[in-house]
C-alpha cells in the first residue's frame, strides 16, 4: 500500500531522559517506526470542511517521545489538528506541541510511563476534498411521475490519497472507499421510483414582457416540476441535498429525450423541491393595462394634491397552444396600499407586494383574466 506519501508521522526516540530539554532539532535522530494509518474516517457532513480522523499505533519508549507530524503538500488546516490518546489516556500523556519553523509539520511530546504500544487518534480538517450530489431523473410521457437516481461524487484534490477509509455522511451508514489524490468518483447513492410530480407554468408580470408578439424572439414561459420529499414518494428518509439534476422523459419508443436540468436547493424531509426544467413557447401570455384613474383626491390649503387613490384595470390573456391542459401561475407584483376591487378569477395574496392567480387551461384554449384594484393613499409631497 503506497497511499501514504505525504502525510507522515515519525517517532523520534530520545537517547536518554536527561535530554528532555534538548533542542528539538538535535533530538530528531532516530526513526523508530513509520506507523500505518488505521481506521480512517472521512466526515462529509459539513459542506464547509471535511474532517478526517485516523488512528495509528505508536511504539513508544519509556519517557518523553517526540512524534513528528508533517503534511507537506497536503491541504491540512494546521489549527484544526488534534491528538487523542486512546489506549491508556490516564497514563500516556500529551505534554507539549511545538512547531518547527518554516515547515508544514508539528512535533508532539508524548510521555509514556513505559515502553509500549499506544493507540492514538489524529483528527484534522482537510481541504479540497468533498462530495457532490447529482441526480438523473426520468419522467413518464404524461409528466406525472419521476424516477430519480441520486449519485454521490467524491472529489479528492487534497494532496493526499486515502486508502480504504470510512466515508461518513450526515445520516445513515458510512461506506468504505479508496480515493487517490486528483481523483473524482461517481457512485450510485440511492434510487426512488414513481415520485409524484406536478407541472406548472409561471408568468411573472414583473419579469416577462407584456406583449410577446412585439418581441423579436419568443417569450418562454418557465416550466417547473414540484415534488415532495416524503414517504409516499419513496423519499422522506433524509434531506435531499442540492445538486445538479438532469431530467429526461420517456419517449414511448424505448428511449428518452433530455428535457432540462436544474440545481434544486437543499430540501428537508416533507418539504417541496422545485425544479426549473425549461421554457414553454406554447403558452402565450399578453398583459395590458386597460384603465387608470385617480380617486379621492385630497388637497392642502394651497389647493395642491397631497393624497389620492389610484384605480386600475388589468387584462391578461392566456393562450394555451398545447394539446394538453396546463396549470398556469400568473404572478402580479403590487405596490403600496393595494386592495383588489374585483377579479374575474380567484387570486391569492402571496405577500404585501405580490398576488398570484392559478389558472387551469384546457388544451388549445384561450382565457382572459381581468382584475381591478385600488392603490390607496398615494402621497404627493
Amino acid at each position, binding site marked *: 500500500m503506497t497511499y501514504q506519501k505525504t502525510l507522515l508521522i515519525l517517532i523520534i526516540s530520545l537517547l536518554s531522559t536527561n535530554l528532555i530539554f534538548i533542542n528539538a532539532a538535535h533530538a530528531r535522530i532516530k526513526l523508530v517506526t513509520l506507523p500505518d494509518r488505521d481506521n480512517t474516517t472521512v466526515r462529509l457532513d459539513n459542506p464547509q470542511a471535511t474532517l478526517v480522523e485516523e488512528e495509528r499505533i505508536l511504539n513508544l519508549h519509556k519517557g518523553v517521545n517526540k512524534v513528528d507530524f508533517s503534511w507537506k503538500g497536503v491541504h491540512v488546516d494546521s489549527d484544526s489538528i488534534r491528538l487523542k490518546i486512546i489506549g491508556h489516556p490516564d497514563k500516556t500523556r500529551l505534554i507539549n506541541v511545538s512547531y518547527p519553523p518554516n515547515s508544514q509539520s508539528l512535533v508532539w511530546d508524548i510521555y509514556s510511563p513505559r515502553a509500549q504500544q499506544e493507540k492514538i487518534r489524529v483528527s484534522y480538517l482537510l481541504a479540497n476534498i468533498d462530495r457532490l450530489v447529482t441526480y438523473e431523473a426520468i419522467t413518464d410521457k404524461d409528466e406525472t411521475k419521476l424516477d430519480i437516481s441520486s449519485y454521490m461524487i467524491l472529489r479528492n484534490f487534497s494532496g493526499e490519497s486515502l486508502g480504504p477509509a470510512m466515508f461518513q455522511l450526515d445520516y445513515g451508514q458510512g461506506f468504505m472507499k479508496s480515493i487517490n489524490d486528483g481523483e473524482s468518483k461517481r457512485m450510485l447513492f440511492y434510487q426512488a421510483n414513481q415520485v409524484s410530480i406536478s407541472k406548472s407554468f409561471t408568468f411573472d408580470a414583473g419579469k416577462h414582457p407584456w406583449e410577446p408578439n412585439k418581441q423579436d424572439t419568443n417569450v418562454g414561459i418557465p*416550466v417547473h416540476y414540484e415534488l415532495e420529499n416524503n414517504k409516499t414518494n419513496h423519499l422522506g428518509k433524509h434531506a435531499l441535498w442540492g445538486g445538479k439534476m438532469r431530467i429526461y422523459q420517456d419517449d414511448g419508443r424505448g428511449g428518452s429525450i433530455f428535457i432540462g436540468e436544474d440545481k434544486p436547493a437543499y430540501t428537508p424531509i416533507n418539504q417541496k423541491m422545485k425544479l426549473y426544467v425549461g421554457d414553454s413557447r406554447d403558452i402565450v401570455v399578453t398583459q395590458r*393595462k386597460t384603465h387608470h384613474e385617480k380617486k379621492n383626491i385630497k388637497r392642502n390649503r394651497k389647493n*395642491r394634491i397631497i393624497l389620492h387613490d389610484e384605480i386600475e384595470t388589468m387584462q391578461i390573456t392566456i393562450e394555451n397552444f398545447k394539446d394538453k391542459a396546463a396549470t398556469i401561475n400568473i404572478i402580479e407584483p403590487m405596490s403600496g396600499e393595494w386592495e383588489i376591487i374585483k377579479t374575474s378569477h380567484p387570486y391569492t395574496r402571496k405577500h404585501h407586494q405580490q398576488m398570484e392567480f392559478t389558472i387551469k387551461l384546457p388544451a388549445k384554449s384561450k382565457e382572459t383574466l381581468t382584475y381591478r384594484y385600488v392603490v390607496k393613499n398615494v402621497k404627493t409631497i
Partner: protein
Amino acid sequence: MRHFISTALLIFGLGISNSSYAKIDLVTVPDRDKTQLTIYNSADLTLVREQRTLTLKKGLNRLEFGWENTLIDPTSVQLRAPRHAAQVRLLEVSYPKGVKGSAIWTIESDIAGPVPVEITFFTSGISWHAFYMGTLSKDEQHLQLQGYVTIRNYSGEDYQNASTRVIVGKIHLLDEIAALARRDAPYNRPDGTIGRLPMTLASGAMKRKAYREMDKAEERLSMNDAVAAKSIIKEGLSEYFLYTIEGTENIPNHWGKRLPSFNIKNIPIRNLYRFEVERYGNATHRLIYFRNDKKHQLGKEPLPGGKMKIFREIDSEGHLAYTGQVHTKYIPVNQEIELDFGQAREVKVEPVLMSEKTENYQFNSKGNIAGFDRIQEWEIKLENNRDIPVDIEVWRHFHNAYWDIDNSVDNKGKFKKIDIDSVKYTIELPPYSKTTLAYVLTKYEGERQNRR
C-alpha cells in the same frame, strides 16, 4: 471511425489494489451496434444513445471509457442494460488523476456472457436548424412554403448509420456542454478552480471557419432537394417537439446535411402594412400573416424558428424575384405567423400634426400653471402605390393615460382602443389610392387629469 469512445474490458484485479488501475487482460469490446442522435437547437447539445454488446463475467467487471479529442461531457455518461436491468449495475465511475479523457467503470453483473447495454451521453458540436423557402404567388395572395432541417457535425466524431432525431424547444442548461467537455476534472475541483484541457481541433476558430463554409454550401444547395426525400416523423413531448428522420444517416465529422421536412403549396396569406413609430420609426413595415392551422394546410406541428428566404413569382413561366430574408420565431400550432419584411417603399403612412392649441388653464395658489388641455388635430395620410389592395394598421401611442379622442366620421369601424395609452386604426386601401384618417386628440396635463 475517429477517436471515439474506446471501450476495453479490464479484468478486475485483486480487491485491494484499488488505487492502481493496472490494465490486465485487455478485452476489446465490439463496435456499437446502433446509434441514435437527438440533436437540440436551443443549446449546443446532442444526446447520443448507443447500443453495444459487452461480454461480462459474474461479479465485478472493470471497463475503460475514453472520450479523448471529442466534445463529450464525461459527467453525462450513463450505462444501462435494458434487458437485464436488475442484474447489471454500474456501481462506480472513477476519473483518475492525470488520465486525460478516460474513466474507469465498475460494473457489477449477476450474469455471465454477452449483455446488450445502452450507453448514453451528451456531446456538443452537432447542431441543427430549420430553414424555410417561401414563394409568393404573383398576386401575393398565396405562399408556397418549403421547410428543411439542416444538421451539422463538428463534434470530432464520425457518426455512421445513426438514427437521427432533432428537437425543438428551449431547454434549461446550467453549464455549456462544450465547457464540460473541456474540464480536466469532470466535476471541477472543490476549491472552485477550473482546469481546462487544451482546445481540440473541433473547437474554436476551426469550428467557426467550418460553419462559414457550410453556410456558403447551404446557399448553393438551397434550390434543390434530395432525389428521394426521407419522411420525418413528428411528435410532441413535454415542451418539446421531436422530428425523427426515417432510416439512418451517415454524418461524418465536419459534414452537414439538409433534409426536406415539408412542402406546402397555396397557403392563403394576409398582407399587412403596419405603421408604429415606437416600433419601426417613421417607416411603414411590410408584413405577411398566416396561421399555423388546418385552414392554411398547416397545423400538424409547430414551426421551429429559422431563416426564411422569400421569393415572388413574376410571370406565368415561374420566373422569380427575390423579396427578402426574415428570421421567423417559433410558431405553435394554431398561432398566427408574422413575417416582417422591413421597410416598405410603396405603401406610405405619414402622421401630420395640423394644429396644436392649449385650453382650460388652471392655476395654483401661487399663481403658477397647474394644468391645461393640449388639443391636437391630426391627419394621418396613407398612400397605396401598389397594384394590389393592401391592409394597413396604424398604431398610435399617447404616452399619457389621460386623453380623449374625437374621430372623424370616416374613421368609424376602423378605430380600436388597445390599452390606456394606445389605439389602433385598420384600413383597407385599394390599389393606387390615398386616404386620410383625421382625429382630434385632447391630452390632459397636470391638474386637468383630476377633472371630474
